[in-house]
């Protein structure tokens, strides 16, 4: 049983906006959301910029009983899921032919941090009794399943910066294979906390002054936070209920570099992109846009450019390739989900989201990165790249509805 799979709804919260329309408008406007962050103990961090979700008032969004169970990561996930389900015109419970696959890298890291602080720093002898179900990495998927009565497949994947793409790709495969009719899928991350930043600082790959993907002046990544959730649905199921189709998920491939724990491999990226094209039955010259992984690190952008040139040959010079991380930051395990919104912007709305902060490429980064300003384009098919630490690569191929 092989079925076509479409996107019929989406939701998000990220530094660019509290929902999909605000996020797409910000992407189209080329607005950046990276700036000074506000955190306890900021003076003990050497990196003090990020793409923080502004004015997040959890107490106004969730009741106190629920907040005892919802890490910031789960709060973002549930907020995005609510918008996704509503925009798809669905209401729960969706039952055994529906499920959820979420991606995250650090899960409930703020909860780990708060409770370690309580026992190690403040000398407390006990922590809140719901600490375990609050911090567990599958909490967001579990609460989404409960909220909408999704009683089929439910799980969380943790493949660092590729987690959302792996999650969405697996959900796509399940619907295509007939294991479910409707899957909620995406990613959520709230690693932009003291301990999360402190850990990334140590690796010396964060930029102290901004995210400039594919620019000669690029000097590292900038962290973001938030969530993105999509409704993936069998096309026949969506048509039968008269749902609006945003785009078609046409192919997916995942590869492992199996070489270095942090340095990207050109071969692994190439095989993932070529694999997604083959899975979708797409000739490379039909692809008009690639949402790049484009972290703004020296190594990623150079390697990704070379991989795109290798896979697409001469067509690489007719492709638009942008990294929206310069606007919303690197959402780690949620990044692919928010970046898939830029793919929808291209396929559905005909707008290429720009790579902002671009101040000129170099010999190794010389693709059309849609520098600084969005532009109109007629895009029939697109890829979304994610290449994670651990050498785990996941590429999605989408077509216009």
């Amino acid at each position, binding site marked *: 049983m092989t079925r076509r799979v479409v996107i019929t709804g989406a939701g998000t919260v990220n530094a660019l906006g509290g929902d999909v329309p605000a996020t797409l408008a910000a992407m189209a406007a080329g607005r950046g959301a990276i700036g000074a962050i506000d955190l306890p103990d900021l003076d003990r961090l*050497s990196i003090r910029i990020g793409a923080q979700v502004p004015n997040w008032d959890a107490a106004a969004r969730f009741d106190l009983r629920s907040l005892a169970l919802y890490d910031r990561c789960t709060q973002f996930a549930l907020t995005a899921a609510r918008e996704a389900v509503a925009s798809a015109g669905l209401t729960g419970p969706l039952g055994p032919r529906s499920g959820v696959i979420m991606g995250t890298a650090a899960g409930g890291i703020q909860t780990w941090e708060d409770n370690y602080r309580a026992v190690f720093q403040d000398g407390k002898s006990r922590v809140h009794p719901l600490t375990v179900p609050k911090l567990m990495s599958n909490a967001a998927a579990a609460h989404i399943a409960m909220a909408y009565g999704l009683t089929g497949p439910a799980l969380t994947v943790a493949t660092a910066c590729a987690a959302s793409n792996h999650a969405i790709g697996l959900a796509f495969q399940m619907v295509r294979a007939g294991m479910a009719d409707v899957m909620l899928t995406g990613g959520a991350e709230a690693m932009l906390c003291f301990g999360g930043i402190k850990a990334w600082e*140590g*690796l*010396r*790959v964060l*930029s*102290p002054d901004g995210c400039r993907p594919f620019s000669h002046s*690029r*000097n*590292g990544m900038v962290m973001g936070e938030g969530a993105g959730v999509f409704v993936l649905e069998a096309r026949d199921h969506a048509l039968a209920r008269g749902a609006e189709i945003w785009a078609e998920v046409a192919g997916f491939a995942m590869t492992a570099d199996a070489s270095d*724990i*942090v*340095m990207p491999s050109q071969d692994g990226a190439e095989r993932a992109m070529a694999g997604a094209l083959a899975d979708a039955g797409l000739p490379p010259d039909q692809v008009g846009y690639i949402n790049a992984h484009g972290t703004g*690190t*020296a*190594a990623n952008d150079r390697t990704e450019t070379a991989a795109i040139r290798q896979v697409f040959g001469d067509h690489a010079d007719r492709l638009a390739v942008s990294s929206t991380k310069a606007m919303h930051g690197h959402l780690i395990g949620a990044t692919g989900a928010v970046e898939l919104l830029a793919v929808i912007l291209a396929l559905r709305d005909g707008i290429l989201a720009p790579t902002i902060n671009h101040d000129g490429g170099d010999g190794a980064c010389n693709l059309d990165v849609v520098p600084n300003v969005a532009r109109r384009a007629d895009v029939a098919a697109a890829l979304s790249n994610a290449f994670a630490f651990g050498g785990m690569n996941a590429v999605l191929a989408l077509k216009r509805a």
Partner: protein
Amino acid sequence: MDTTAKVIDILAAQALRDPATIGPEDTLATLGLDSLGLVEVIFALEEAFDIAIPFNANDPGESGFDITSVAGLIGAVEGLLGQKAA
């Protein structure tokens, strides 16, 4: 223990080498240290000397911290120690 010996000890621990076999002309490459080994060395130096080393793996040449050789590393650490004392 003087600065030179401490720096060499840290490099030796990372490179799994006898400190006596490491000289000022050695480089990260001759010591077999990759980019992850380097960030571990920098961490160990910061901890041992209580200094903050300006180093960005994206742009090692622009960091103003000499990593081209063991002698360069020792000089850079001494420079930071001098700034701390000043």
